């Protein structure tokens, strides 16, 4: 493999505390090293910004609902399907790009890793088929557990050890990365057309509450010591007044300490917090609850969050929160897709237009920005658009421009048709903070890497770390104040190194890299009870045989397996 030396760039690396100093980065055999020989290829990064490759902590990029969203929306790419010159394939789709476009676009934005945020275990093979076809970026997927019958039955009796053994079994069958929980209990209730809107609403038949599920999954996650924490999409998403339920759920993590060998400090990651930070009782008196929620998050060191920024686009919402999508369809009457998955979960999809002329959508935009701007510790707050729910990930550069330039976001805020209403319903106008490049590196690199338990090799530029490096045409000494300029600078990297290879140069994809699928193999003590329950459920209730359930090896030809030993004496 070739050697590189990236010279004279302004380096931003929270791992080493480097804040824009000029520093050379040496690369050899896919790793960052201290020094390279004189034969190394020189990359001139003068007047450029150098960061580690970014990590996407939460996006819907592969799997059954993502794909349904693609193919049932031909109108989303009818005029948006192009092939760029070079080695790339045809790229299609605005709100839900095809797998090819997904890989290329993430790479062009400087990303080297993306987490698929919701994998129904029964559909794991589908998720991995798409991951397999997504070029360049490394990917992993989180199986969903919050409405799984095994989990509901074990946690009803607070059987944490059995829960953990079952989680370990699922991770191995599905090549999954960690524990995702979506609308705990509510999605099982949805199988009967019902929902759980607070954490104390009982789940029909199973006699358990969302609170018990959340707490039990956090405990099981720490019992196993997985690299990532429990990853929660809370109950009552998207409804005015939900911030109380949000804080109630976050409180469940109080007093629990992270137990793992990966440097992770949080026990709960609360995702797309924007959708969960609303005050008021209806859309008429709706107000931002971002301050209340972030005040709590800032105090609790064992929590991480991501934002879920609304980008004010036409997009496609999709979530395992089945009842929410049904509710949304009732509001906008656009085409509704739903699938309930036996014993495990559900999913819904509805196209959505975040019209800036609408005061509610403009306020949601403001709430998302507030979440990031209120965050005291950028190592615990990550920028996402909950792609494609609040907007497509391809809009990250625009989100960065709103966060990094007060001028830019104020221009947007004051040009809303109902600006007065938005300003009075939110606190955004009062916030002066501008996210710095260093903070951006924390929120998109070092932070997510630590949260996912990958901080040893990813999210930084220290010697020994993986050579995933993004170089932007940004001179920190002359940081643009103009929104479109900031956007342009982040939209196409000057260079993207993935595993020490140049994959993007001048915004153009030049190499497909060495794409890997990450998953976690947790060893637990032999558990006869759980194995018996699994056999029983497959014989009686599943529609596929147990032997046809696992993801075959060939689906993930390049695996990065993270081993965890959770056997107990």
């Amino acid at each position, binding site marked *: 493999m070739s050697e590189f030396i990236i010279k004279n760039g302004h380096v931003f690396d929270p791992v080493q505390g480097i804040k824009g100093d000029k520093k050379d980065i040496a690369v050899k055999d896919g790793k960052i090293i201290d020094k390279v020989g004189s034969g190394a290829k020189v990359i001139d990064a003068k007047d450029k910004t150098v960061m580690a490759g970014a990590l996407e902590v939460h996006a819907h990029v592969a799997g059954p609902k993502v*794909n349904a969203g693609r*193919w049932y929306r031909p109108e989303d*790419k009818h005029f948006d399907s192009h092939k760029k010159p070079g080695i790339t394939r045809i790229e299609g789709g605005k709100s839900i790009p095809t797998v090819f476009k997904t890989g290329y676009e993430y790479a062009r934005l400087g990303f080297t890793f993306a987490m698929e945020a919701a994998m129904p275990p*029964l559909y794991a093979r589908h998720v991995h088929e798409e991951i397999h076809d997504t070029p360049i970026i490394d990917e992993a997927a989180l199986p969903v557990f919050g409405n799984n019958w095994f989990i509901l039955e074990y946690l009803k009796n607070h059987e944490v050890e059995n829960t953990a053994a079952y989680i370990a079994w699922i991770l191995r069958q599905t090549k999954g990365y960690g524990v995702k929980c979506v609308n705990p209990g509510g999605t099982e209730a949805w199988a009967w057309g019902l929902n759980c809107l607070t954490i104390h609403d009982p789940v029909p038949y199973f006699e358990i509450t969302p609170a018990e599920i959340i707490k039990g999954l956090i405990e099981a996650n720490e019992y196993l010591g997985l690299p990532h924490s429990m990853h929660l999409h809370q109950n009552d998403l998207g409804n005015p007044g939900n911030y109380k339920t949000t804080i109630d759920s976050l409180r469940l993590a109080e007093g629990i300490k992270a137990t793992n060998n990966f440097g992770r400090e949080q026990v709960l990651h609360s995702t797309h917090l924007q959708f969960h930070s609303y005050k008021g009782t209806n859309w008429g008196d709706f107000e931002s609850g971002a301050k209340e929620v972030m005040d709590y998050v800032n105090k609790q060191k064992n929590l991480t969050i991501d934002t879920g920024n609304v980008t004010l686009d036409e997009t496609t919402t999709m979530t395992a929160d089945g009842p929410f999508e049904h509710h949304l369809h009732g509001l906008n009457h656009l085409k509704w897709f739903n699938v309930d998955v*036996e014993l495990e979960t559900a999913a819904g999809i509805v196209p959505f237009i975040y019209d800036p002329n609408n005061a509610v959508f403009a306020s949601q935009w403001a709430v998302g920005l507030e979440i990031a701007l209120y965050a005291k510790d950028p190592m615990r707050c990550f920028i996402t658009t909950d792609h494609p729910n609040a907007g497509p990930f391809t809009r990250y550069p625009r989100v960065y421009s709103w966060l990094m330039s007060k001028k830019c976001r104020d221009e947007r805020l004051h040009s809303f048709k109902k600006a007065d209403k938005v300003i009075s319903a939110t606190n955004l106008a009062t916030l002066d903070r501008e996210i710095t490049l260093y903070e951006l590196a924390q929120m998109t690199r070092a932070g997510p890497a630590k949260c996912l338990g990958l901080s040893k090799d990813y999210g930084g530029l220290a010697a020994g770390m993986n050579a995933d490096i993004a170089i932007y045409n940004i001179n920190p000494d002359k940081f643009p104040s103009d929104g479109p300029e900031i956007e342009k600078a982040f939209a196409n990297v000057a260079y993207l190194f993935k595993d020490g290879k140049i994959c993007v140069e001048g915004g153009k994809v030049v190499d497909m890299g060495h794409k890997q699928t990450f998953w976690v193999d947790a060893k637990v003590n032999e558990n006869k009870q759980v194995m018996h329950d699994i056999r029983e459920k497959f014989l009686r209730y599943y*529609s596929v045989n147990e032997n046809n359930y696992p993801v075959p090896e060939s689906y993930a030809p390049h695996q990065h397996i993270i081993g965890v030993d959770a056997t107990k004496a």
Partner: protein
Amino acid sequence: MPKEVTDVICPFCGTLCDDLIVTVSDDNKTILGVKNACAIGAEKFNHQRQPGRVKRPRMRQADGSYKEITYDEAIDWTANMLVKSRKTLMYGWASTSCQAMSIGHEIAEKVGGIVDNCATVCHGSSLIAIEDVGVPSCTLGEIKNRADRVVFWGCNPAHAHPRHMSRYSIFPRGFFTVKGHKGRKIYCVDCRYTDTAKCADEFIQVQQGFDYELLNAFRTAARGEALPDTVGGVPKEKIYEIVEDLKTARFGIIFFGMGLTHTMGRNHNIDIAINLTRDMNDHTKFAIMAMRGHWNVTGSGQVLGWQYGFPYAVDLSRRDQARHQTGETTSVDLLNRSEVEACFYIATDPGAHFPVDAMISSSRKPTVTIDPHINCTTEISDIHIPVALVGVEVGGCAYRMDNVPIETRKVVDPPEGVLTDEELLTRINHRVDELMAKGGQ
């Protein structure tokens, strides 16, 4: 010693049963018996061992007879045809693996093909309807575990999906459905008193071609509005009675088939059935599902979906963009209008299943057909390339009618020297690369 292969997936229909047990000879060459399969599935496995199977490519001669050629010759001819043609119909894919489809799409993107699958004459109407109005659905296990009202509308699983009723929809006992059949009320709506109708608690005979009107009447009744005395031959009292009963379901499901997709109005029949299902969700929980035919037609839609964003009829002929318009880029329309210059058929038999005028148009163009067996299409093609039977002689991923993917199993070796779809397509792809590098189009 003969051995048993268990958990075998049946590569016939969209039910994708995964509990077959196949007995094979100890040399892995011959299937000796099949357990758990329906009559059709069993025949598929049994046909594998019949003598007289074609094992090498064949080329049609001037006198109409076929002459054996080598794989290399067939691959070269095919690649040349693809490179030369300005617009090629690449139809089929429903009986091959997702892995093979992926390679096929790569070829299509290079040569300017239009990739279409068997949905085009099957559940294409359903896909149009879902594109227009979405679909509330579920996996088959949900029906087994929860459904207490089951409606078969214009479908006949007793003939087309023989084990569907016993595995998922009528007879099985599930978690919340411990009484099995007794706990479910089964309706069948059809213009014929089919064998499926004979299993139903209630049969509603609709006048052929009046499904849209009848579904409109169901929706109107559900909103408590007035109806004419009869709709599509069904008295209004009956319509009100059924609608009220469906509202009292705990979990209801509508299965539909060719009775809706092939009948006047096509996609609209499904569209309005989906809307009825959506309306029912204001009262209780309801789902609807297409009874997909070919065992992996769903998979083709999925792979096209994640690679191009459209479920079928994907026009890559411009090579720099993907387009989709049923009625234009669909196989039968392309052939009716003679909009393509060459035809490439894989894992399907349009000769048996397309209307004759479309096939007359096809027969006048250079044509390659890739199929394990001789069929109607191979006999009007310039070249027939035999391949291994996917799901029997080679594995690969397939998607069930509810979009659940299952990796099919290889149970016996293919005949010696016979390529798999993946191997063959890979070689065609390489040959296309070589020709294009040499300055082909």
